[in-house]
């Protein structure tokens, strides 16, 4: 069953069309990767889904509901969380304050405490640093905080934008490991990555984007063996 369906989506920045009629769907329980070069429109798609950028045309359905015009702040309580590009943690607030803000829309105090415990179990380093100001964390720790913060809303769909960007290889492996675990816990993942190799290794299916269009799609394993994908994105 599709948790997210995107139909013929188009997005403009002023007069420039960034997304040119894209359709794809994400099924319950899947990890879907959107891969492509810089400027292909990956981030734009995620930001349009979570209501940060308005869509010019097309429709977005989440669990069967049309969310194309739903304001971004209402999507969190519907079960969508977004780990933004560049992490965007609240640098002047503590780790704990950041995590609590992730649960902003929730009212079940006990449930929030429970989720906090689970986030700390997943990211022990965040617990060690819970009273530290987020701006002083390393890049990898900030990425973990951004992911933990998104998990605090207890999402059914989590969209992640370039989670491995700017991280050391050790952190990259750790982050992808965690994405796999989050998915196995029952959260559907829509992943945007420049690290196509890692993304295809973890994803069920993938879509390849070029200048605002989907040029290839299919099973992640098949795409990994596709010659043009190999040439363009896997540097082989």
């Amino acid at each position, binding site marked *: 069953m599709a948790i997210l369906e995107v139909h013929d989506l188009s997005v403009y920045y002023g007069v420039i069309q960034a997304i040119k009629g894209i359709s794809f769907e994400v099924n319950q329980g899947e990890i879907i990767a959107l891969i492509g070069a810089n400027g292909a429109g990956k981030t734009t798609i995620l930001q349009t889904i979570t209501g*940060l950028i308005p869509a010019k045309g097309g429709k977005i359905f989440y669990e069967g509901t049309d969310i194309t015009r739903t304001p*971004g*702040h209402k999507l969190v*309580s519907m079960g969508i*969380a977004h780990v*933004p590009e560049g992490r965007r943690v609240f640098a002047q607030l503590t780790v704990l304050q950041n995590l609590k803000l992730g649960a*902003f829309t929730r009212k079940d105090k006990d449930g929030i405490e429970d989720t906090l415990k689970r986030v700390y179990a997943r990211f022990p380093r965040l617990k060690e640093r819970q009273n530290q100001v987020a701006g002083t964390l390393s890049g990898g720790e900030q990425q973990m905080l951004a992911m933990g913060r998104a998990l605090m*809303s207890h999402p059914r769909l989590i969209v992640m934008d370039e989670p491995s960007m700017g991280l050391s290889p050790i952190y990259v492996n750790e982050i992808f490991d965690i994405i796999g675990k989050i998915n196995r816990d029952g959260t559907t993942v829509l992943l945007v990555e420049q690290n196509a190799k890692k993304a295809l290794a973890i994803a069920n299916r993938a879509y390849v984007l070029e200048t605002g269009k989907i040029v290839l799609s299919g099973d992640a394993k098949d795409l990994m063996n596709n010659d043009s994908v190999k040439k363009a994105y896997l540097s082989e």
Partner: protein
Amino acid sequence: MSFLTYLINGISLGSIYAIIALGYTMVYGIARMLNFAHGDIIMVGAFAVFTAVSTLGMPPFIGLIAAIAICTALGLTIEFVAYRPLRGATSLAVLITAIGVSYLLQNLALLIFGSNTRQFTSIVTLPNLKLAGGKMTVSSVTIVTIVCCIVIMIALTSFINHTKTGQAMLAVSEDRGAATLMGINVNRTIAVTFAIGSALAAVAGALLCSMYPSLTPYTGSMPGIKAFTAAVFGGIGSIPGALIGGLILGVVENLSKAYISSQLSDAIVFSLLIIILLVRPTGILGKKIQEKV
């Protein structure tokens, strides 16, 4: 003894600047705009108290509550009608709109109340305080003003640190987009900020006119500019900065009036601002904007 009196009066005046400066600094911190109509909300608050107490004969406390309600509603209306449609606009457009709103409020007050100076009856009816065996008198307004400032600072700080709305304000002030991703309604958070700032302006207006009892439609503009100076001075966007900036401004102004020249006091205050900004462009407690890597 006279120095002490000047100092206490300076702290009291500074407390009023600090209460007004909170409105500037919170709105700047959260909505990233300079609300130059803020000073005129003080004037509206003072006229509201004046009308309720002197014209309608209500008790001062009820008059103050009415003024807070009116100013809060006014602040929300201004935000909704004038500033919200400009949320994505350039800061210059917003600034010009704010100046326009300021003129609008002044001229509406001229239309309704006329340009005559009104004699404001102090809302503080407590007796004056005699200290050091009667050698020194501190007016009750002075004391009440300082107490009000302390209470407001404590209340506001705990509101921001211990409520969800307060945390949302911090989040919005740091990153509007990321705040939206947390499920925070940015427009609503900005509206709450205007409501708080305007309510504080009403309190400041009542205290200011209790201290200096002449009221005209222009009463708010000079204290407004000085409180804005105090906010910049302390570091705009910072709540403790507004307090420190306000207090320093009030004390310096009062001491220069007493010991140097009452005509030069404003010049001294603003020169001090220029010097501080040359040395510390972000103000005393202002944070440097960190470049994200």
